[in-house]
């Protein structure tokens, strides 16, 4: 109680800066006067009386201090005094303060921002996200695919490991609204799917159980952006009718978008059970997601489903297959996660380099402060006072740098979505990862405190006398300091080497990707896709007619050199695959060779300017009635008939006809510029029924492909004004998009590598510059004794080399295990090229030497007279 009264009194005094010093002075004066009088009565002389009175009173200064201490908050007062002092120091050497704060801000801010961005993008914000798994079919060739409807239903009814099982089928449907028809993304979902992902209706409601049975009246739920775009607001969309693929669906609700979305972001959701597209065991099209029961492990669920599947397989032996369960986050992000990890590591290294820089700077300063602390100690400052001073300075530095870092991190998370890396779906919102912020803050605060305390700690170890005499060069602790600085610089260079090496590696890999021959010529090529609605094109004949009319119109456009079509756009292919039999090979179909199958028109490969290695492309002579033919790619040829001419041999695929191979095509990177081509078989659409309903057309143009976009669109509408077209883009854009992920990763790594180089060079410069300033006298003497400029240079370069050498070597040595880790992670068959290592070394050595150059020039210009005279 008393404590609080006193405390509040003190606080009030402190804040109002009330100073009752005058009162104390008066009281003291009065006291001493009275004592003096007594002494005089006792017989002393006036002078002696006063003197004795003062002696009896005691040290006025101490009393004053104690009085004052009682009055206010000495803690706060001291703190402010220390802060003001620290700020004055900063004003004296603004360069140091600036560099320190920037280093801290970069280290903390960049790390936190990138961690948070990636963490947010990889987060699954669904309820039960940790228990969600994706379930796929597996086939003998090791492929994992989507699932069939009856399988899904069986699993749902018979399993014991899942709380919920739900499925999703992504398709494209034609929506005819007030404007021209468009293809939109539709998602047929099983019951409970939407709520599984935590989606709550913004307007209206989710599907009701009655709407999710076979044959129910068609209803749909819209995505909120789509609803707003088409109907003005979510609320006004409910109850309206939507024309999809010629049927009318009634809108029952509007949902917010699912982020991240499992498949393409859907604009409309439909109930799956009301009209499942295919209902037999062989047709796989569902993406199945399950929520494990609490306490059930993935392995147990896998076992459970495997048993169920084997039961199904007994009943339907033609469609037997295995099951694979993987966690949902692995399924969605599995391919991206390794790259993210590598980036994490890189950013971590940048943080380390920043901390090392900071430590070096603080150490350097500490030796300067030794002398000052020695003087202060001699004047009566207790050692703890000095420690407190150092603490306050370091804390101030950490606070300033930390806030700057926080600002940086927050700003970075507000990056507009357009700038978002394309391979990561932009998350709904980016959460600043508190954990990472704390971690990096702790790291830099620790560094600054640790190294900022160095001078004060030295006080405890050496007497004030030594400190006073100190001259940063001759102090006994100087050797330790030098070693510490050298060690830190070597560590910094090691990290920088690692980082730069990694960055170079990624960048060269990416450049290599860009350079690989995709197997076709991508320039001057326009692509567009369309999908013919069944209602108006029920038969194969109508589809063919449409295409041949379109092909004619497009070919007739001035500037169009050739036209062709295939089932998927170039570089974005999701080919079907199948097993096959080949001449001279095993007789049964179970020999585990699957190949990708591409349906193409006769003009396609020519338009794409694929490389024909042997034989011929498809031509007009290949029709439904002519002998069946096929084209294979080089890889398949080498696999099946190594060292032989495949032309003339036969292959049986898809149907029961033996087809003659009429040509061999060089590998084409159909699935993406970075994907290996694999085994490829081309079949002509003219020899099959169907296959022309959903295709991608390419035109080889003489000038810029987008010049022809309008004309192409017009060509389509002139045949069918109600047909939506999509993907009207130059093929080059498609190619670039297919390696967007690698491009972003390479860019980020490159940026980080540059940052590391910058930080390292600043660090080296700082350390060398500082040691030069310490050795001014020595250089002056050397010059006076006749040393020439290049000798001084050599001296400095060699001393840098002694530190940089081991540092860089350490980095190179560590690069090997790190590269192994990267390879295991990324699964790339990219060996670390010796060339990369050599370039890295050259870069780092150059940086170190350049950073030494400026201080070296200063050293060589040292005026001998001044240097000798300086203390």
């Amino acid at each position: 109680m008393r404590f609080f009264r006193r405390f509040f009194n003190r606080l009030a005094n402190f804040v109002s800066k009330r100073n009752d010093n005058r009162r104390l002075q008066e009281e003291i004066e009065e006291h001493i006067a009275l004592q003096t009088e007594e002494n005089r009565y006792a017989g002393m002389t006036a002078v002696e009386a006063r003197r004795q009175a003062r002696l009896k009173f005691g040290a006025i200064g101490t009393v004053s201090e104690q009085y004052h201490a009682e009055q206010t908050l000495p803690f706060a007062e001291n703190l402010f005094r220390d802060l003001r002092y620290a700020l004055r120091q900063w004003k004296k050497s603004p360069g140091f303060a600036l560099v320190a704060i920037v280093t801290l801000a970069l280290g903390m801010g960049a790390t936190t921002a990138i961690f948070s961005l990636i963490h947010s993008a990889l987060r699954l914000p669904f309820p039960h996200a940790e228990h969600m798994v994706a379930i796929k079919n597996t086939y003998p060739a090791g492929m994992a695919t989507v699932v069939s409807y009856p399988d899904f239903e069986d699993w749902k009814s018979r399993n014991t490991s899942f709380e919920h099982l739900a499925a999703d089928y992504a398709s494209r449907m034609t929506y005819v609204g007030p404007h021209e028809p468009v293809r939109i993304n539709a998602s047929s979902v099983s019951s409970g799917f939407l709520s599984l992902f935590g989606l709550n209706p913004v307007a209206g409601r989710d599907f009701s159980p009655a709407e999710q049975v076979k044959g129910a009246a068609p209803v749909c739920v819209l995505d909120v952006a789509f609803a707003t775009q088409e109907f003005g607001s979510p609320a006004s969309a409910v109850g309206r009718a939507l024309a999809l693929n010629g049927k009318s669906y009634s809108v029952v609700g509007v949902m917010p978008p699912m982020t991240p979305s499992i498949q393409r972001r859907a604009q409309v959701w439909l109930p799956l059970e009301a009209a499942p597209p295919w209902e037999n065991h062989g047709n796989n099209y569902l993406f199945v997601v399950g929520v494990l029961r609490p306490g059930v492990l993935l392995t147990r669920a896998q076992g459970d489903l495997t048993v169920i599947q084997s039961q199904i397989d007994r009943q339907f032996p033609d469609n037997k297959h295995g099951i694979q369960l993987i966690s949902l986050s692995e399924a969605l992000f599995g391919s991206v996660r390794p790259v993210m990890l590598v980036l994490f590591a890189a950013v971590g290294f940048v943080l380390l380099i920043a901390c090392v820089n900071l430590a070096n700077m603080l150490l350097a300063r500490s030796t300067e402060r030794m002398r000052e602390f020695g003087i202060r100690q001699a004047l009566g400052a207790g050692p703890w006072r000095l420690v407190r001073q150092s603490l306050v300075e370091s804390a101030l530095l950490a606070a300033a740098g930390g806030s700057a870092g926080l600002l940086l991190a927050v700003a970075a998370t507000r990056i507009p979505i357009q700038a978002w890396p394309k391979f990561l779906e932009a998350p709904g919102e980016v959460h600043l990862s508190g954990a990472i912020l704390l971690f990096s803050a702790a790291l830099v605060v620790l560094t600054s405190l640790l190294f900022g305390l160095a001078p004060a700690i030295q006080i405890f170890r050496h007497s004030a006398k030594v400190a006073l005499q100190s001259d940063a060069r001759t102090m006994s602790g100087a050797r330790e300091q030098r070693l510490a600085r050298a060690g830190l610089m070597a560590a910094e260079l090691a990290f920088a080497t690692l980082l730069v090496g990694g960055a170079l590696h990624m960048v060269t890999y990416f450049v290599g990707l860009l350079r690989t021959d995709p197997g076709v010529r991508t320039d001057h090529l326009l692509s567009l896709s369309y999908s013919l609605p069944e209602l108006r094109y029920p038969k194969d004949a109508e589809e063919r007619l449409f295409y041949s009319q379109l092909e004619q119109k497009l070919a007739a456009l001035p500037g169009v050199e050739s036209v062709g079509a295939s089932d998927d756009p170039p570089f974005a292919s999701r080919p079907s695959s199948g097993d096959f039999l080949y001449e001279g090979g095993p007789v049964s179909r179970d020999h585990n060779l699957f190949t990708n199958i591409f349906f193409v028109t006769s003009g396609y490969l020519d338009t794409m300017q694929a490389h024909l290695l042997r034989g011929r492309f498809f031509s007009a002579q290949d029709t439904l009635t002519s002998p069946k033919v096929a084209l294979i790619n080089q890889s398949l040829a080498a696999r099946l008939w190594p060292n032989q001419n495949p032309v003339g041999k036969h292959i049986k695929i898809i149907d029961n006809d033996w087809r003659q191979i009429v040509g061999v095509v060089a590998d084409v990177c159909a699935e993406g510029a970075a994907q290996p081509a694999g085994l490829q078989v081309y079949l002509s659409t003219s020899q099959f029924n169907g296959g022309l309903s959903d295709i991608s057309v390419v035109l080889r143009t003489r000038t810029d492909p987008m010049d022809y976009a309008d004309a192409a669109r017009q060509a389509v509408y002139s045949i069918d004004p109600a047909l939506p077209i999509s993907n009207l883009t130059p093929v080059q854009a498609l190619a670039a998009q297919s390696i967007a992920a690698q491009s972003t990763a390479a860019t980020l790594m490159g940026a980080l590598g540059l940052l590391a180089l910058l930080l390292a060079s600043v660090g080296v410069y700082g350390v060398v510059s500082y040691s030069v300033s310490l050795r001014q006298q020595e250089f002056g003497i050397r010059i006076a004794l006749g040393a020439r400029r290049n000798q001084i240079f050599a001296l400095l370069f060699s001393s840098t080399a002694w530190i940089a050498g081991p540092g860089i070597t350490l980095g190179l040595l560590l690069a090997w295990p790190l590269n192994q880790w990267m390879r295991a992670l990324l699964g790339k068959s990219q060996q670390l090229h010796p060339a990369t290592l050599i370039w890295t070394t050259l870069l780092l050595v150059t940086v170190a030497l350049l950073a030494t150059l400026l201080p070296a020039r200063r050293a060589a210009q040292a005026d001998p007279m001044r240097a000798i005279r300086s203390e």
Partner: protein
Amino acid sequence: MGKKPDVLQGTLALMVLKTLDVLGPLHGYGVARRIEQISGDLLSVNQGTLYPVLLKLEHEGVIASEWGASENNRRARYYRLTRAGKKRLQAEAREWEQTAAIIAQFFKVKAEDFS
């Protein structure tokens, strides 16, 4: 310099309170002299340390101060005991008596008492 304690400060505070209780309002010098007389050597040097204690007690609310005229008609600050101060004095006096009694018991103890 917080070595000199709290022990001294604590007893000093008590002495100040008792002095003011017995002798009524006094100025700082008066308190110092009376304590010196009663306690013998305890406060013969460093009388100045009284003033921080006075301030502390005033902050705690057990004494109050105001300006008045000293014997020589000069300005002096007079301290007096407040009601809270009286209560505190009584409480502390009781505590001291208790402590003294316990210690006295211990000193009376002989070896035979433990068996």
